[in-house]
């Protein structure tokens, strides 16, 4: 018997032994239902199955007697109504006068405790919830003689019409220096668009609700101010005599960065966006196109304006014009000139330290939004 047969026989024996004694052929019992049963006696069973007796039913039922009804008319009696007595109310005797109340001096309130230190104000966090605005109908433009980009409410009756808002001032006798007395001024009432008779009247109920407005954008960053830039440090690693000479040449020809800025920049930094907007608003308040022809309203005119240091125009000239014929261009230019002269008569409000930046201005008057549509 060779070794292979021995190994095979031993293996088979081990497998058969594991199958017999290892529990391979054992199985769990099948599940079954279990019902609990209670044993009862014969008497108890008889009592359960015995028929139940019906309840007794009464046959003799007496009907209720009808009540006696008296049909005779009620006795109204012969007596007459007695006139009710009307008595005048007793006049009360004049009450005695009230006793004079005791008047005592009112004690002045105690002085409030005032602290010189300002209270601490806790700024709200940016995530604070914002209530939605009340639902209100959109404002409808009303009829007014003046149409302007921004609506203006009717001024006070005593206020003089002027392009500039100014409160009334009265002389203050207590002041050391006398103050000039001036009347209140306010711009004329204005609406934002022409309202024709054919426009539908505004409805009382709002047709839509206003959504909460988005958070306003942060104010624009001020425009970068041109300042002298520090000179870049010279590279030292590859510095040679020749590069030093070339740097010297470049400085001599083009000038250094710092010296260039200092010499070519006019006094003060350029106008900020807000300063330009203020100038734009000042001019457009005086640019009246209401008396221009429809042809002149097609003309975009560019006007060159020179201002003195007080912001008053010293010269105005037409630089160019597009979109119309000769006569229309002339009237468009005249309206632009009137705007500059009227609103610049007292000097435009411009920063004096930046005079070189606004001494010469090119103003483009574009009437596209103002045409009759």
């Amino acid at each position: 018997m060779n070794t292979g047969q021995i190994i095979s026989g031993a293996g088979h024996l081990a497998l058969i032994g594991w199958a017999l004694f290892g529990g391979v052929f054992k199985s769990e019992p099948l599940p079954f239902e279990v019902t609990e049963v209670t044993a009862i006696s014969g008497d108890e069973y008889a009592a359960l199955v015995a028929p139940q007796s019906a309840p007794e039913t009464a046959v003799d039922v007496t009907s209720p007697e009808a009540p006696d009804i008296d049909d005779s008319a009620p006795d109204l009696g012969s007596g007459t109504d007695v006139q009710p007595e009307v008595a005048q109310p007793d006049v009360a005797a004049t009450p005695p006068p009230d006793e004079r109340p005791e008047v005592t001096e009112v004690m002045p309130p105690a002085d409030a405790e005032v602290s010189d230190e300002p209270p601490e104000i806790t700024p709200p966090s940016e995530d604070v919830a914002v209530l939605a605005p009340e639902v209100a109908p959109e404002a409808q433009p009303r009829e007014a003689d003046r149409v302007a980009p921004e609506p203006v409410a009717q001024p006070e009756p005593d206020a003089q019409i002027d392009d500039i808002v100014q409160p009334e001032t009265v002389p203050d006798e207590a002041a050391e220096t006398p103050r000039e007395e001036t009347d209140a001024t306010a711009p004329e009432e204005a609406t934002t668009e022409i309202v024709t008779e054919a426009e539908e009247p505004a409805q009382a109920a709002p047709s839509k609700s206003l959504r909460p407005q988005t958070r306003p954008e942060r104010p624009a960053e001020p425009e970068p101010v041109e300042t002298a830039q520090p000179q870049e440090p010279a590279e030292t690693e590859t510095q040679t005599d020749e590069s030093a000479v070339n740097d010297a040449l470049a400085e001599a020809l083009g000038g250094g960065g710092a010296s260039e800025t200092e010499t070519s920049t006019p006094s003060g930094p350029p106008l900020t966006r807000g300063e330009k907007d203020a100038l734009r608003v000042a001019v457009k308040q005086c640019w009246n196109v209401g008396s221009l022809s429809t042809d002149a309203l097609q003309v975009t005119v560019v006007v060159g304006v020179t201002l003195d240091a007080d912001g008053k125009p010293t010269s105005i000239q037409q630089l160019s014009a597009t979109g119309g014929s000769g006569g229309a261009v002339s009237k468009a230019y005249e309206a632009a000139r009137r705007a500059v002269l009227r609103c610049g008569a007292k000097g435009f409000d411009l920063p004096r330290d930046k005079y070189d930046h606004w001494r010469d201005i090119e103003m483009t008057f574009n009437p596209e939004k103002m045409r009759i549509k």
Partner: protein
Amino acid sequence: MMRQFLTLLTAATLLAASVTTPVVAQSPGPLRIEIDEGVIEPLPYAVPDFVADTDAAAELGRNISRVIAADLSGTGLFRELPKDAFISQITSFASPVQYADWKAINAQALITGAVSVDGNGRLVVQFRVYDVFAGQELGQGLQLTGTQDGWRRMAHKVADQVYSRITGEGGYFDSRVVFVAETGPKDQRAKRLAIMDYDGANVKYLTDSSSIVLAPRFSPKGDRILYTSYETGEPRIYELNIGSVTRRVLPTQAGTMSFAPRFGPDGQTVVYSQAQGGNTDLFSMNIATGASNRLTSAPSIETAPSFSPDGSQIVFESDRSGSPQLYVMPSGGGEARRISFGQGRYGTPVWSPRGDLVAFTKQSKGRFHIGVMRLDGSEERLLTASFLDEGPTWSPNGRVIMFTRETQGASGKASLYSVDISGRNLKPVQTGTGASDPAWSPLQQ
């Protein structure tokens, strides 16, 4: 080594030159801003009484300045400054103007003038217009001469000049309006033709009230009128010469009803409606020869024709699509193009003298409107709204529209109104009696 030395020497020389040369500051260039919004408001102006050398002329000077002010302020484009606000007084026409005094009261325009009567009894009017803030005269001084009775016309001519010099477009003050004067109750109303100045002054009647008259229309020169009369029982077209107040009936086809006439720009061609057998079509006629020409032959109603300013096209009203709408076709007839597409019924179209707009009557949702639109039907704007507005007519400069407004009820009355084409300055025109069917003349020669 030598090369390096030369380079260094050159650099040193240039550096020294840059230090010793005076620095020239570079200009930053002009500040550039764009103004794309302005205001629309009446332009303040001052018109002192025109100076005169006699008491009689002084009264005329006052009256003339008042008519000028009424003309200018009546446009809604100008606002007169009250005399009690004046700082300067104009005592001499030749004296220089104190601009500062007029600037101080915000007078943006100043009109000065002088009135005198020459040796022949003729009225002489001189005037100048100033741009106060620019400190210069607008245009040149002008002198007008006429009869003393014609002082109102001279005032209107001055106002036309002022209007033109400030706005850049022609005026419309020296013009007239012909209309149908109406008197009596609504069910028994007497109608006759009348003519007046544009502002309601100098009303004169051209016909009696024995027959119904309708739709008068001026000739291009303003010397003749076409109108429709029921004098013979049926509507016929008449031509009336204003100067001689003589008239003649146009030789339209016998047995037909002819109405809604309008002159062409040549003053000889007339376009009108003719109804025959229950159908109404457009015809044109040369009134010198009487030759007529059919322009449309549709089974629908075509009426209210109006020439374009160059005479090449006609805008008219037709219900060929089922409801009255506006159409444009060549003046000799041909294919028509619909231009109105809004909801409602469109009628009585009139071509603007500027050629860019059509005025019309629109009925929509129980109301009547006067409106304007472009020739392609775009930019429709309704200017008015009432119980009954109809029959627009253009001012000579195409800036103002006059029309008929009738009030509701048995006691309703027709009257004339005018409105700027922007929709502003809607106001009644004073006529004395009831009035309808206005037609605006061209500027008088």
